[in-house]
């Protein structure tokens, strides 16, 4: 029986309608000393308003450089069960689909080797197993491997790719996000497990511009589904929306960023100028039964998003406006460009410089030149507005 701690502050967080993480810790703590100590130190943090974790050293499993975050407590004498409290990142199945059986196999292993606490999932997408000791890392890893799971990324490597549910359950998916996510993950096993980059590299796959995996904000490479031909319109369903009281004019037409729609109240017909449409998804989102992406589907590839550290947060920007994702050759060409980019980044990138920051530093045009990609207007929100142009000295007469 683990030692019983008083946790009045945390207890307060057992109340209320939202599921309680305190209940989870307590549940695990019933027969796990690590979780029990965690509860205690967390209560202490609530009292003192400060954390008690120290920087992790380098811990991991044989042959891998990533997948484990080392963690130690700063008062091990008082909480000996969590003097080590490393997390393991386990590569989730694409789209986070499970069977009850698969989940149970993970639970059983984690019951044996760790705290019994998890994050389903980490914000990169991994199954996060929260808290174990250095000794347990290798056995946990192998137990997991024998039920089919492998570690995810950490450190300066390819991080665990993730994707939206896509074609598995979404009518708007413009390519097979789960398929390509899996393919990419398998292709990058070595880079995922053995950090050899200047810094981390994240792939995220969204089936359409709604971007349900928030790729554009946080992936070094965002693959975002889109289409080139006309939006498919079911006139009868448009009329039904209208008859059911939808304010098509204010809610759909006026919200179109391209201002490319017209709605006629009499005929109840919606007209779209597809040449001007920006594939923003809004009209489709608003009227899912009436409108759908076209048939000529593919993806836009964007590059360079990241959180603020060091040079400020970045959003992804367009690298390839359109790629037919079901075409294996086009996918291969894309993987080639990825490799080209990684090579240049590995050569020229500074330590802890994400690809987005690298591009900011060397300049998009120089970057493209190095990678062998032609600049096109789709890549910019607007051309330069300052006249400080580095004309090349051999080209000036052209």
């Amino acid at each position, binding site marked *: 029986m683990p030692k019983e701690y008083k946790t009045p*502050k945390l207890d307060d967080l057992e109340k*209320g309608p939202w*599921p309680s*993480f*305190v*209940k989870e810790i307590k549940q*695990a703590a019933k027969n796990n000393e690590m979780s029990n100590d965690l509860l205690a130190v967390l209560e202490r*943090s*609530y009292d*003192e*308003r400060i*954390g008690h*974790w120290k920087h*992790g050293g380098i811990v991991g499993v044989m042959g891998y450089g990533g997948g484990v975050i080392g963690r130690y407590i700063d008062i091990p004498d008082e909480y000996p069960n969590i003097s080590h409290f490393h*997390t393991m990142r386990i590569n989730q199945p694409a*789209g986070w*689909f*499970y*069977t*009850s*059986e*698969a*989940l*149970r196999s993970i*639970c059983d292993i984690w019951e*044996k080797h760790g705290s019994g*606490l*998890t*994050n*389903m*999932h980490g*914000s990169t997408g991994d199954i996060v197993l929260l808290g174990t000791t250095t000794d*347990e890392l290798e056995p946990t890893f*192998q137990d997991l*491997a024998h039920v*089919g799971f*492998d570690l995810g990324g950490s450190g300066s490597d390819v991080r665990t790719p993730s994707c939206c549910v896509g074609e*598995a*359950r*979404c*009518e708007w998916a413009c390519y*097979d996000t*789960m398929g390509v996510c*899996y393919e990419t993950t*398998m292709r990058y096993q070595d880079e995922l*497990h053995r950090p050899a980059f200047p810094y981390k590299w994240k792939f995220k796959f969204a089936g359409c*511009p*709604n*971007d349900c995996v*928030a790729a554009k904000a*946080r992936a070094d490479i965002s693959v975002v589904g889109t289409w080139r031909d006309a939006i498919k319109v079911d006139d009868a369903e448009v009329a039904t929306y209208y008859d059911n009281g939808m304010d098509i004019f204010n809610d759909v037409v006026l919200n179109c*960023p391209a201002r490319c729609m017209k709605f006629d109240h009499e005929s109840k017909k919606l007209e779209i100028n597809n040449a001007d449409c920006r594939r923003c*998804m809004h009209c489709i989102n608003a009227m899912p*039964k009436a409108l*759908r992406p076209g048939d000529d589907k593919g993806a836009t590839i964007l590059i360079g998003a990241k959180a603020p*550290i*060091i*040079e400020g*947060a970045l959003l992804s920007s367009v690298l390839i406006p359109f790629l037919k994702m079901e075409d294996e050759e086009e996918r291969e060409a894309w993987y080639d460009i990825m490799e080209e980019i990684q090579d240049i980044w590995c050569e020229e990138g500074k330590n*802890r410089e994400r690809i987005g920051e690298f591009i900011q530093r060397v300049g998009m045009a120089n970057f493209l030149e190095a990678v062998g990609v032609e600049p096109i207007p789709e890549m910019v929100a607007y051309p330069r507005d300052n006249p400080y142009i580095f004309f090349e000295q051999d080209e000036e007469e052209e």
Partner: protein
Amino acid sequence: MAEAQRERLTDIGPPHYEKYLPPVVKKNYGQWKYHELVEPGVMVHVAESGDELYSVRCASPRLLSIQTIRKFADLADKYCDGHLRFTSRHNVEFLTTKKENAAKIKKEAGEMGFPAGGIGHGITSIVHTQGWVHCHSAATDASGVVKAVMDDLFEYFNGEKQVPGKCRIALACCLNMCGAVHCSDIAILGVHTKPPRISHENLNKMCEIPLVSASCPTAAIRPATVDGKASVEVIEEQCMFCANCFTVCPAMPLADPDADGISIWVGGKVSDARSKPMFSKLAVPFIPNNPPRWPETIAAVRKIVEVWADNARPYERVGEWIERVGWPRFFRLTGFEFQKEHVDDFKYAGLSYNRSAQLTHEPWEE
């Protein structure tokens, strides 16, 4: 615990997702036609074939014990032939072809403490990070703040209260922003506000001085000899408390019970629907940590949700609404004080100044 006999497996990658897909998904993969909200927390996707898939989305604290995961597995066995998934925002979704099962799942999961909701226009779970549960870098807790805020906003999750569109809330416990809060409708961000305390004793042993100096975005760190030891010093006026130095050097902690706290950011988004992706902007620079319920933080978040819900037009995300009516209106309606801290002074600051005479004017504001 090592089983000596067993072959050592590496680089097998994740399980192939196909093993885990429900039959209806396999059959209709890429053939979905449309979806509809059935009731709060329940939606149905209808395939070209006519097949239906009901998804019941249930709240999750994300930090889950194996006991709870096993309960989820049991529920999936009972109603979903063992099939379930998690979402990109860490909710759990039970998948069934039967409408009547959906209702039952919703009820039973609710009774277990995992209520359904978060689909459509409304507030879904808060993407968040480790906080005091696991990270050395945290300026606030993660799970506790999330629990407190979601308890307060629960009516927006379970469908009781309507809002104009989606509102995504995220939390990160330090400027590393693991929750990618920089593009959220409402972001809760842990901040340090005191410069690093340097342990001159250990610094040279634990860290490489050139690396430490180079880590500072504002060049506030320079090598120095202190008490005869090679170390660094921080020009305090140049420090903006990003903790990047601490990331590369444990001998420079910033955490401080009184100086650590929470800042609130608004108006970010990631989708391209209507408007392009936007960063979140500063709403409240600093709220002290006040566990276990962080009442001031709860109040600030609620205030934003309420003024948005009351004033925005249908489909308008928080940032889109503010862009339309202007930031002066936002500050007046929320009552948040506009301070020096709100005015950007980082590298793109110049573009954040109001370079236009387009303004609304006071007499019309309530």
